[in-house]
């Protein structure tokens, strides 16, 4: 029951607040916060009860849903999803609190937001492919409205572009799912059963299905060349929605690859490992250079997401213990760090109503607390040792370099350029925005306020703590990764 509760508490909260009379916005905010908080608490209970020494599914719920199709309502957590579960509920609560500054159409905003949370949680917990797909698509509609109603100047364009792009990916994925269903001997959507039946799928079939699913997942990640929706959506979305978008939604793509492709289509994963590594390299380098070219702070962070998701892909393409653990850890870290960065960009935008990197200067003396926090987040993002980002990026690279393949080593080496460029653009940004003589125009900017601190500080604390104790998160996935590596190793020719 616990997982069902976690998943649907936000939706119940969302439905409840529809009945709040008009004008009582504070009650709406209260209900939304309560729902998100309960979801977080429940997910922490799951985390505490989670047994790291097991590789199998835990907290399993398995019920018949549509008998004639053999569809089941099947939830469970394992090492791949537990970190994502907590990340989702944490970022959702933080985003809800940050969203107190939304003043127009409050009720609808929080309704869509909580619906989105349910969709995201469902994606990470579902173990039935049909259910997975339903949750996957449920995230689209609220996101469309969240960007389209409360977004920036080009919100309508960004909203529909996001919607069309991701729907395109997911309908192709749907064909793949249906084909898998009919190909499986027992006609099932059960992911674990499908994984067991993986040997019965021919190589060609696996490759075709992998390609179909990959389009769906790659658009979400986003993998170059499917990334063009991302800068638009991130820049136009309201701050809290950008946090969710970068922090959680992108992870659905890489999570899907791990959960589905890696376990159900192992042959194809081996076949496509090298192309995936190349795409990862492009993501890393291209994303970094694009970020460097940006004048808009938010757009820069958006492109840095493409860059950072590239590390995840690189770790996955390596298929080594270090690489896969690093990839999962990097998914978590990117959620925390980029979430914080988007919040911080939101803070400055709310005050200055501009995000032009060139237009600031010397904010360090005007908003010292804000500057300090921003520095920590930036350093975590560029992988400074002592902060969480370092470990995951290091492991992704380490894992990729361990592969006994010259091309893989070359790709990994080239990808390292991305790290340098990342450091460069972040440092340039810090120099332009926070250092130097204080810009007269911004003398009166108020310091970061309490609500904003409440939202950012927990994320900063996590970055620091995980910087020293990375094993807290790493341990969660290690058993699953071990069995996955073993499984992939066994079929290697």
């Amino acid at each position, binding site marked *: 029951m616990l997982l069902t509760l976690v998943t649907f508490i936000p939706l119940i909260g969302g439905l409840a607040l529809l009945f709040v009379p008009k004008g009582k916005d504070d009650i709406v905010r209260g209900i939304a916060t309560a729902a998100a908080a309960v979801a977080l608490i429940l997910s922490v209970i799951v985390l505490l009860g989670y047994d790291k020494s097991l590789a199998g599914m835990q907290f399993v719920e398995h019920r018949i849903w549509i008998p004639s*199709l053999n569809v089941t309502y099947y939830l469970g957590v394992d090492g791949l999803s537990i970190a994502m579960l907590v990340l989702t509920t944490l970022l959702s609560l933080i985003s809800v609190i940050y969203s107190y500054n939304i003043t127009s159409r409050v009720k609808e905003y929080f309704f869509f937001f909580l619906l989105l949370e349910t969709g995201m949680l469902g994606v990470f917990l579902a173990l039935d492919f049909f259910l997975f797909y339903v949750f996957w698509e449920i995230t689209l509609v609220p996101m469309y409205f969240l960007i389209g109603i409360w977004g920036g100047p080009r919100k309508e364009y960004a909203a529909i572009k996001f919607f069309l792009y991701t729907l395109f990916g997911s309908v192709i994925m749907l064909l793949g799912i249906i084909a898998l269903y009919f190909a499986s001997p027992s006609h099932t959507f059960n992911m674990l059963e499908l994984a067991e039946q993986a040997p019965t799928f021919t190589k060609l079939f696996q490759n075709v299905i992998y390609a179909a699913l990959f389009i769906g997942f790659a658009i979400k990640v986003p993998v170059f060349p499917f990334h063009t929706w991302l800068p638009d959506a991130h820049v136009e979305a309201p701050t809290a929605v950008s946090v969710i978008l970068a922090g959680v939604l992108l992870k659905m793509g890489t999570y899907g690859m791990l959960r589905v492709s890696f376990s159900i289509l192992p042959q194809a994963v081996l076949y496509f490992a090298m192309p995936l590594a190349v795409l990862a390299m492009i993501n890393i380098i291209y994303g970094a250079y694009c970020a460097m070219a940006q004048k808009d702070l938010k757009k820069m962070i958006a492109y840095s997401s493409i860059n950072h998701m590239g590390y995840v892909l690189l770790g996955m393409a390596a298929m080594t213990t270090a690489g896969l653990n690093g990839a999962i850890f990097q998914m978590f870290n990117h959620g925390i760090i980029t979430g914080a960065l988007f919040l911080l960009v939101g803070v400055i935008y709310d005050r200055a109503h501009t995000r032009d990197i060139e237009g600031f200067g010397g904010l360090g003396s005007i908003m010292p607390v804000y500057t300090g926090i921003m520095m920590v987040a930036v350093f975590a993002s560029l992988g400074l040792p002592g902060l969480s980002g370092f470990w995951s990026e290091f492991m992704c690279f380490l894992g990729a370099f361990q592969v006994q393949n010259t091309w893989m080593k070359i790709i990994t080496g080239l990808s390292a350029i991305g790290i340098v460029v990342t450091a460069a653009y972040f440092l340039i940004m810090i120099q332009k925005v926070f250092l130097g003589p204080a810009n007269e125009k911004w003398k009166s900017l108020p310091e970061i306020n309490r609500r904003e601190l409440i939202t950012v500080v927990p994320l900063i604390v996590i970055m620091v703590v995980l910087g020293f104790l990375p094993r807290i998160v790493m341990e969660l996935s290690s058993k699953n990764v071990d069995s996955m590596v073993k499984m992939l190793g066994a079929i290697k020719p």
Partner: protein
Amino acid sequence: MNTVSLKDFIYLIPESFVLCLGILILILDLFTPVNIRRKHVLNISVLGLLLSLPLLVYAPPKGLILGDMVSIDTYAIFFKCIIVLSAVFALTMAKFYAPIKDEVIGEFSALVVFAVLGMMFMVSSSDLLMIFLSVEFVSIAFFILTGYIKNDPKSAEGALKYFLIGAFSAGIFVYGMSLVIISTGTSNLKAMSGILHAPAGYSPLFLTGFLLMLVGFGYKIAMVPFHTWAPDAYEGAPTPVTALLSAASKAAGFAVLLRVALAAVTGRADLVLALAVLSALTMTAGNLMALQQNNVKRLLAYSGIAHSGYILMGVVAACSGTEPELGITSVLLYAFVYMLMNIGVFAVIIAFFNKTGNDDMQSYSGISKSNPYLSLVLVVFLVSLAGIPPTAGFIGKFYVFSAIIKAGPKFLWLAIVGIMNSVVALYYYFRIAYFVYFGAQKDDGKVEITAGLAVIAGVTAGLALLVCIYPGPFISAAKVSVLIP
């Protein structure tokens, strides 16, 4: 062959009941004062139609009766329920649709009831002659219904186009039918199926005749290239009639088409391919043209054409192999969910129309600010039409695509065309949402939604969600209704 016997009429109790209802309404209409007609005559028709539902559901399926002309099977009953339900919804909508005046509301309801009767026979027909008679019966009723707002030139234009194209296609249909009867020596579907599946059963004469008949079916289900009447008729017709046209008339058309196709097309690779090509053309053309529309009713007409294309995929799947069950189930389910979401969306459109006075998307600008709930309901229908979970439209789409993928790799291209189309469709459905949610608010007038419309919108929206969240009963209903060819 069974001979005609009076006993057979026992199995036609629901039909006889609806016939009596129609006559009763005509008589009542004569003796009821104008000012209470809207209330009473309409209520009686709605109630009568509702009463025919249990008759339909609980009457045991019998099989072929009346000299094999009519088949009372679960397949037909499933479609009859769709037809009756949509008529109930359409009549309830008509009550709150101002352009249909009090003076004519009695005849209007009688015509709807007669159209329902015709459609009930249509879906039961198992003989080409019976098919032709019932199709014409229905068409004539709809010609009049479409042109019901006499002083509106658009209504007249729609009716005239519907009529002219209908007359042409009926002529071609009869011609094709005659060729088919000559070549096979029978007009009965069951006998025909046997003859066709004997060696050398398909003569060139039959193929010509069948393709000509396809024109008639194509017209009925708004299949490209016989769809041109649909946008004008949908736009011009009173909105309740549009809802009925799109939900019931199309379902009935598909019921007949599938019945004939199962008898005549199954196993003929070239005919199946022809249907597949028509399906791809229909959905692509419908979607591409829908992109340009600003009038919501016109847009829904084109979207309806696209949906016909999706349902045709199910027909293709049903006819392509030896296992037609999944294909037939998908057609049944799709017809049902399409009825739900279309009725719902038209109910919302009527509510908006009563406020804004027209059906242009732009006039919906910002309407969600003062009507958050109604707009949310509209979003449910749009999401469903786009085939996105958690709505009925997704289940329909899922089944159709499952059926076509199960049919094997030879129709994978059709599945891909269909999938691409559903992305295109999203764009224009959400253009409506764009105006409703993102447009600048014109005034903060609240839409006065009458209780009846609210009930229709609420019930259909609830069902549209339920079909995805708890689809078991709906799927089993469709499964037991699968026609055994």
